[in-house]
């Protein structure tokens, strides 16, 4: 009968680096779930992250218009999706609206440009925001939207366009901040 000699040091104690010479086959030699108490996730399988990238921009300059058709503002940001079916989450918030030369009903619209091909309207952000004397509220933008229709991996520009029905409409005054955040989510 052949005998195998097993060193007692191999049965207990600390495994040294020397004893780990070579490599461990992680494809088949690891089982079980590392609990959260030991720094693991507690998950039995891996789920890839859904947020692929985030872009952001802020603006504090004054923005105003007397145009009765939609015209571009400086409020924009760009994102280049990694997949055509990614969702683009859009947040645009802030600003301090006002008016001049008389009552003005300001409107804001989100425009989109894909691959530098020219801007077109994507969604109305708010319509006919009344600004007039007698206690108006200097309202701000509060808009969010999920763009699922871009179908591209080219650069996408999102830009805020504004117009007024009369006089002058101010989208932003007094160095208030307008922020825009674009987030690409995996489909």
């Amino acid at each position: 009968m052949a005998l195998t000699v097993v060193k007692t040091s191999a049965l207990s104690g600390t495994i040294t680096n020397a004893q780990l010479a070579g490599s461990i086959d992680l494809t088949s030699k690891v089982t079980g779930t590392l609990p959260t108490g030991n720094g693991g996730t507690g998950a039995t399988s891996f789920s890839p992250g859904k947020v692929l990238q985030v872009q952001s921009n802020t603006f504090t300059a004054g923005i105003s218009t007397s145009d009765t058709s939609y015209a571009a503002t400086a409020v924009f940001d760009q994102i280049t999706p990694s997949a055509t079916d990614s969702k683009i989450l859009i947040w645009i918030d802030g600003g301090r609206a006002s008016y001049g030369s008389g009552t003005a009903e300001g409107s804001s619209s989100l425009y989109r440009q894909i691959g530098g091909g020219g801007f077109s309207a994507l969604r109305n952000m708010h319509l006919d925001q009344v600004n007039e004397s007698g206690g108006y509220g200097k309202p701000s933008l509060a808009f969010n939207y999920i763009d699922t229709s871009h179908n591209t991996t080219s650069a996408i520009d999102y830009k805020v366009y504004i117009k007024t029905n009369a006089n002058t409409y101010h989208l932003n005054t007094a160095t208030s901040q307008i922020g825009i955040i674009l987030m690409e989510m995996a489909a």
Partner: protein
Amino acid sequence: MNNIEKFWTALFILKDKVECTVNGDILTEDDFNNNILWKTGIEANGKTAIVTKTNPHSEITWTKLKTEMDKL
């Protein structure tokens, strides 16, 4: 009256109901040439302005605008 209010007041003195969009203050000739989108028409969709940074209004110049703004 702040700077942007002076701009709009002076602008309408030179030409009433002129349509444009302003991003930032208009304090210098450089601002005048770069921060204003002047409306020249409407796109076929009927709601988007056709704009240019080149001032199409002969009644309005930076010098005239600055003169009016300084009076305010």
